[in-house]
């Protein structure tokens, strides 16, 4: 087998087939693995994930991969966390009590607001298509994974918790849910995260994966 251009970390959580297919559609040679050596020698790494934060961190640790992901980030290898994989990049989550994360982007993971900006109750989880918008700390997307994406483009979300980075510059894109901002994409140096599922977000999502493969 030739050397993969991107490795998707398999730690027993979630549907990895769609992520794999999305990257393949972008022309990449993809490996899905839990092998630390393969992950550490990869030119790019994707950390996927669905489900509860504590379960995800526990599975990652059980496979001995939490330190491997930190090492990937420290080596300046491009790293993309998707959904729970993005949330785990932060310091900690308040889902079912406080659980420590990977600490690669300063901040914590908090609940999606159950009350809209107009004081109305709204449905959580936040599920469906929502539009990406630039943020105060990132007014344009040039040089980011969102470079090819137009503001307002819709992507697919399924989640009950959201990342809240400390540094506004790490907040690349938000979407509005009931008028309340939700952190949709984050980034710091070589570490990126998408709360939405690029592999389920049609042409817009594929552009983001394509851009990651060009990192």
């Amino acid at each position, binding site marked *: 087998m030739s050397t993969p251009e991107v490795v998707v970390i398999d730690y027993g959580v979630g549907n990895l087939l769609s992520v794999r297919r999305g990257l393949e559609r972008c022309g990449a040679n993809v490996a899905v693995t839990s092998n630390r050596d393969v992950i550490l020698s990869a030119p790019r790494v994707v950390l996927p994930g669905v489900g509860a934060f504590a379960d995800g961190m526990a599975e990652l640790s059980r496979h001995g991969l939490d330190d491997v992901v930190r090492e990937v980030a420290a080596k300046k290898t491009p790293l993309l966390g998707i959904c729970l994989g993005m949330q785990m990049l932060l310091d900690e989550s308040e889902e079912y009590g406080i659980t420590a994360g990977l600490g690669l982007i300063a901040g914590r993971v908090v609940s999606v607001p159950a009350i809209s900006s107009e004081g109305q109750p709204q449905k959580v989880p936040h599920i469906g298509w929502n539009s990406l918008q630039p943020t105060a700390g990132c007014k344009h997307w040039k040089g980011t994974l969102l470079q090819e994406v137009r503001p307002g483009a819709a992507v697919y979300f399924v989640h009950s918790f959201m990342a809240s980075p400390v540094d506004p510059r790490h907040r690349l894109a938000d979407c509005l849910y009931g008028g309340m901002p939700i952190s949709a994409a984050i980034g710091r140096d070589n570490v990126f995260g998408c709360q939405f599922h690029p592999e389920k977000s*049609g042409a817009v999502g594929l552009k983001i994966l394509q851009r990651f493969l060009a990192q």
Partner: protein
Amino acid sequence: MRKIRLIARLDIKGPNLIKGVHLEGLRVIGPPNEHALRYYQQGADELIYMDCVASLYGRNNLGDIVQSAAKDVFVPMTVGGGIRSVADATQLLRCGADKVAVNTAAVANPKLIGDIARRFGSQCMVLSIEAKQVGPDRWEVYTDNGRERTGLNVIEWVRKGVSLGAGEILLTSVDKEGTRKGYDVALIKAVTREVSVPVIASGGMGKPEDLIDAVLQGEADAVAMADILHYRRATVGDIRNVARGAGIDVRDYEHA
């Protein structure tokens, strides 16, 4: 309001995409994934695959079809028909499905709803309901693709299904299905009034304008479309434009 989702529904029998009337008299349309790809490229927000003879034969053969679709289709996919256990659901999710829709087995064993919701999250557990009108404002739950009556009242069943963990309702009107006479708006309204989870209206779209009443009066969160797309009477893009013209918020697909 959230964006209203436009969902292409593909009913499958064996290797074929089929279409019936009142879920019966099934006619072969063609290879399912040729159509799935067309709908994805037209901007469908999601796809639903239903194996419409699975319950009869006690197995679902959609795994291969979905796995092959996952190479080309990058929007959420819901798969249903003949799912009887958490293991069946697991197998379909591994093939690239994002949600499973359960009808017959949930009626026989309501505990299955909670089992699937606990294992994969309620957003993954779609309760599929085939409803037939039996009186004024009264609908009965049918199973086995509209063949078997259950004696269950649709509204009571929806309430119970959601309390057990169903995260979404796929509501098919057997009376309207395949007739092109428009959605059963009274049925949709009766269900959306009852529950806070998203409701997908299915059955009866004859022309794009039919979705307006389903959404604005029925308050459906999503509309499923089959016949109108399969017979190329409209594209997803045509339907999106009609929705937008009526002031309905839909995904800005062209805005990629």
